C-alpha cells in the first residue's frame, strides 16, 4: 500500500446560502485549491452529498459538477453512506491512491439543505434509516437519539440538566471557529428552554440545518513533492456497520464504532490523550456515548469529563459548526488538518501530532474513523 497525504484543505462557512447554488458553494470552497495550481494534476474527483437526488433533483451530481467546474475529463464519482458520506469519500480517495489507481484525488463534500423548508429536509434525512421498516412507520433519527438519551439518564441516574454541558462547550468552541454555523454561546437555561425535538432532546442538543462545502486534496508521495503547502499523512482509515436499534441487545452500545476503533488500534499506535479528536455529535447524547466507546470516559461518566477535555471538537462539532450532511466528514478532516497545521484555523491551534476523526450515520448504523498525522 502506498502512503496517502492530505495536500490541501479548504472550506466555506456553514450557513444558509439562499442566494447560491451547490455549484457556487463548491466553487467558493475550491477557489483556494485552484489558486494553488494543484488542480492540474488531479486524477480523480470523489464527491460526497447525501440528499442531492431528493433536494437538488440531481443524479450523477459528480459528473455535472465536473462539467460545471471545467474539471473534465477528470473521472468523477459520488459516494453516499448516510451522514458519514464525507468520511467515506475520503476513505475511497485514500483507497484510490493507496492502491496506485490515482496519484491525486480531489474529495469534495457539498450539501445544500436550504432549497426546501426544514420539514422536507427532515423527511428525506429520515431515509438514512431502513425506509421499509423504520421510515415508513414514522420513525426518525432524533427519535432514536431520544430513546438512547432517556435510557442513558435512567441507567446512570443522570439529570437532564447535567447533559447540557456538551452543547454549552460546543457552542463555546464554535465561537472561535470562523467556519462554524452557530457562533454564539449558550448556557444551561438556554439549552433547557429551547423547543423540544423528541423528549428529552432539545433543539440545542441537535445539529442545525445548514449548507456547506468542504474539500480535501489527497495525494501520493509523488504529489507531495510538488506541493508547497503543509502536508499530513492519512495514517489509517477504517469503518464498520452495526444492527438497527431494535435488534440491539443494549441501545447504549455503539458496536460499529467499537469494532472500527479496535481495528484502528491494532493497525496504528495511537495515544488518544495526545490526539486532536473530531467526533460525530449530531445529538449531544451521542457525544457522551462516543467518548465512552473510545475509552476516554468510563461508562456513564462522560458528562463529568467534558469540562476537562481540551482536545475534542475544537471546531464546535456537528452541534455548533453544523452538519451539512454529505460535507460534514470532509469538514471534520479539513478542520483537524488546519488546527494541527502551523497556521492553525483562525485562533484555533493544537500542539499535537495526531488527529482522529469520527463520523457515523444515525445511531452508529455505520461508523468510520480516520487518523491523520503530522509528518514534519
Amino acid at each position, binding site marked *: 500500500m502506498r502512503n496517502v497525504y492530505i495536500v490541501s484543505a479548504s472550506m466555506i462557512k456553514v450557513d444558509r446560502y439562499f442566494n447560491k447554488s451547490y455549484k457556487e458553494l463548491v466553487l467558493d470552497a475550491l477557489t483556494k485549491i485552484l489558486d494553488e495550481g494543484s488542480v492540474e494534476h488531479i486524477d480523480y474527483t470523489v464527491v460526497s452529498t447525501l440528499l442531492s437526488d431528493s433536494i437538488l433533483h440531481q443524479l450523477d451530481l459528480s459528473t455535472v459538477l465536473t462539467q460545471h467546474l471545467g474539471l473534465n475529463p477528470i473521472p468523477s464519482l459520488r459516494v453516499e453512506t448516510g451522514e458519514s458520506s464525507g468520511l467515506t469519500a475520503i476513505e475511497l480517495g485514500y483507497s484510490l491512491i493507496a492502491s496506485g489507481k490515482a496519484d491525486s484525488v480531489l474529495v469534495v463534500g457539498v450539501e445544500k439543505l436550504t432549497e426546501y423548508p*426544514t*420539514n*422536507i429536509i*427532515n*423527511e428525506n434525512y*429520515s431515509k438514512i434509516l431502513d425506509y*421499509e*421498516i*423504520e421510515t*415508513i*412507520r*414514522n*420513525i*426518525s433519527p*432524533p*427519535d432514536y437519539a*431520544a*430513546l438512547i438519551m*432517556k*435510557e442513558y439518564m*435512567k441507567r446512570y441516574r443522570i439529570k437532564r440538566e447535567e447533559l447540557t454541558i456538551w452543547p454549552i462547550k460546543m457552542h463555546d468552541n464554535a465561537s472561535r471557529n470562523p467556519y462554524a454555523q452557530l457562533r454564539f454561546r449558550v448556557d444551561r437555561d438556554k439549552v433547557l428552554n429551547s*423547543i*423540544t*425535538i*423528541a*423528549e*428529552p*432532546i432539545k433543539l440545542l442538543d441537535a445539529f442545525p440545518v445548514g449548507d456547506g462545502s468542504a474539500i480535501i486534496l489527497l495525494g501520493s508521495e509523488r504529489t507531495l513533492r510538488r506541493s508547497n503547502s503543509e502536508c499530513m499523512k492519512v495514517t489509517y482509515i477504517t469503518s464498520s456497520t452495526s*444492527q438497527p*436499534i*431494535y*435488534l440491539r441487545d443494549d*441501545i447504549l452500545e455503539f458496536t460499529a464504532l467499537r469494532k472500527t476503533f479496535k481495528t484502528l488500534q491494532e493497525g496504528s499506535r495511537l495515544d488518544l490523550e495526545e490526539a486532536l479528536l473530531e467526533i460525530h455529535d449530531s445529538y449531544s447524547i451521542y457525544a457522551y456515548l462516543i467518548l465512552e466507546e473510545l475509552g476516554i470516559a468510563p461508562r456513564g461518566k462522560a458528562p463529568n469529563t467534558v469540562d476537562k477535555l481540551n482536545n475534542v471538537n475544537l471546531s464546535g462539532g456537528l452541534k455548533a459548526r453544523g452538519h451539512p450532511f454529505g460535507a460534514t466528514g470532509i469538514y471534520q478532516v479539513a478542520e483537524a488538518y488546519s488546527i494541527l497545521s502551523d497556521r492553525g484555523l483562525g485562533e484555533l491551534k493544537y500542539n499535537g501530532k495526531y488527529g482522529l476523526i469520527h463520523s457515523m450515520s444515525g445511531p452508529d448504523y455505520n461508523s468510520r474513523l480516520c487518523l491523520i498525522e503530522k509528518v514534519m
Partner: protein
Amino acid sequence: MRYSIPIFWRNKYSYYRLELTKCKKCGKVAFFRRSICPYCRSREVEVITSKGIGKVVTYTVSYFRGSTNLESYPRIIALIELSEGVKVIGELSDVKLEDIKEGMEVEAVLRRYSSDDPYGLIYYGIKFIPRVKK
C-alpha cells in the same frame, strides 16, 4: 401519491400483521419478514406472526416534523419488547401522554399511517395501544 403502492402491497402481511422472522439455525427472532437471519445469515428461517402483545421498554414524545408524518403529532415512538422476546419499534396510539409508562402492556392494532388527502389512498399499518384486558 405519498407512498409506493407496490411497497405497501408487497409488505402487506408485515404492515398489517406483526410478522417476525425466526431462525431455524441460531434460534433468534427478529422483527419483520425476512429471507435471511440478520444475526447468523442462515437462510433457513420461518416467518411467524406475533401475538402482538408486549411491554414498553422506553418511549419518546417526538415533535420532529417530516412532511409526511403530520397525521399524528406529536408522535409517541416506543421501543416495545414483544411476548416472543423480540424488540420492535413502533408508534403508540389511543393513549394520553400522561398515561404512558415504561413497562406498560401494549397490543398491536391496525391504524392509519397516512393518506393522500383529499381523494387518494389511505395507508394503514401496525401501531400499539394500551392493552385491553379481556
